[in-house]
């Protein structure tokens, strides 16, 4: 009997929760704010859904009732992707070590 592909996705999901659990516990507390902004940025990978939705219009019709929601979601996710990664970059650039030659 074949296994439903859903079960595979569920396995990936469950294992990823555990990976996330251990990886996030190893994040140093001083970087918790960048952690939040970068998780924000990566969760915007939802843009893949938005792109599929936006390009779902049939031939010649760019804006259909369903693709409009896709386009709107693209804007929202793009704000998040660019904003999230850049603000994380900006924050991380500020974390400096004490200069040794004091």
């Amino acid at each position, binding site marked *: 009997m074949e296994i439903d*592909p859903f079960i595979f996705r569920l396995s*990936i999901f469950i294992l990823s*929760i555990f*990976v*996330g659990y251990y990886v*996030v*516990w*190893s*994040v*140093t*507390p*001083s970087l*918790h*704010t*960048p*952690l*939040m902004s*970068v*998780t*924000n940025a*990566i*969760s*915007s*990978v*939802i843009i*893949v*859904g*938005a*792109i*599929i*939705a*936006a*390009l779902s*219009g049939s031939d010649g019709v*760019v804006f259909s*009732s*369903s*693709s409009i*929601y*896709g386009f*709107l979601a*693209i*804007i*929202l*996710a*793009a*704000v998040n*992707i*660019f*904003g*999230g*990664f*850049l*603000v994380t970059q900006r924050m*991380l*650039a500020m*974390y*400096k*070590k*004490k200069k040794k030659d004091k």
Partner: protein
Amino acid sequence: MSANLSAILYLVSGVLFILALRGLSSPETSRQGNLFGIIGMVIAVTVTFLSVGNFGAGFVYVLIFLAIGGSLGAFIAYRIPMTAMPELVAGFHSLVGLAAVFVAISAFINPSAFNLGTPGNIKLASLIEMAIGAAVGAITFSGSVIAFLKLQGIMSGAPITFKGQHLLNALLLILIVILTIYLCLTQSSNLFWILIAISFLIGFLIIIPIGGADMPVVISMLNSYSGWAAAGIGFTLENTALIITGALVGSSGAILSYIMCKGMNRSFFNVILGGFGATDQTSGSQNKEQRPVKSGNADDAAFLMKNASSVIIVPGYGMAVAQAQHALREMVDTLKKNDIKVSYAIHPVAGRMPGHMNVLLAEANVPYDEVFELEEINNDFANADVAFVIGANDVTNPVAKTDPQSPIYGMPVLDVEKCKSVLFVKRSLSPGYAGIDNDLFYKENTLMLFADAKKMTEDITKNL
């Protein structure tokens, strides 16, 4: 592009996202981690374009919309002051939530584009995943909007409570489950819209009773929700990158909420049910007795610090409000020139989001190896000469250790009172967020400095 190849590439981008979080285990590797995240995102977007394979007029519009959102995001990222980071993150969460809702709606209207069946005849599993994604996304959206408004000060940070609040929330949650079941039975689009509307309402209702200082928990929780919403959509789209990311973000937010709750010694449900501080505030002000307080000026503070050999700085939300971090670092520079050892002590819930104080100090060029977490530094207070409390309050209150009646009893606090002397910068004697008097104000070795944090710090530097 073949479905197998794109699935593998989505997996690669999921792994890169794991590495992005992994990089944050230390500041040295963190920038590389962020780069991994960016690469992962570029792969995911490129693969999506290639596998849809539609490079007509729609593709051009996608790029235009991408550019609009991207430049808007980049503009915000460059302009936002570091003190506004909690608002920014709350705002960003709301966007993820709303994007999830939009994608779910689009999939519901046009399921064939996503290979989910035809309108009115959507696969059962997909319909359930869609409903979950949309509901969690909607809750994330409206909850984050309220959190944003509270943090921004547009809405009062005070908890808003009313009778039957919890009952109403519980009923609405049950209603969502019932609606989802009916949606699966009937495939009715009206039910789908009602489901989304009720989810928006729940997000709104669960955040309004939570007070300003509980924001670290709220933001972490919404972070977690945005992850679960993404995972729900990931199942709908059968997309590995989204499923992995959703799980990562979901567990990340959950861990942060847990850390924040532990920092306040409160259970998650206690925070979520809200209303904390609202009742204590009234009782606290009624039986407030007049106790003698020693207050001083910048000159006294400078004198104390000049004669100290080690100083510990305890920053809190007040520092962020007064934008005093740069002035503070200048003061510390002067102290260091006089061979005084200075370190910073950060309480887990200081500020309005996890790690808030660390970012502000980093912005002011404070080296991160001078900044310590509560467990690392708490024993050092007994050996330090001066503790300089700037904008923090409840997290230093010794009552948490001594008075079992106190609402903050059991909360881990910084042992500031063990220092030889304590300098407490504060605008007035008013109680902190928990609504309780801080015993520290009245200690023999405490000197209160009543002023704006930034102004006082600058004045002290002048007097050093």
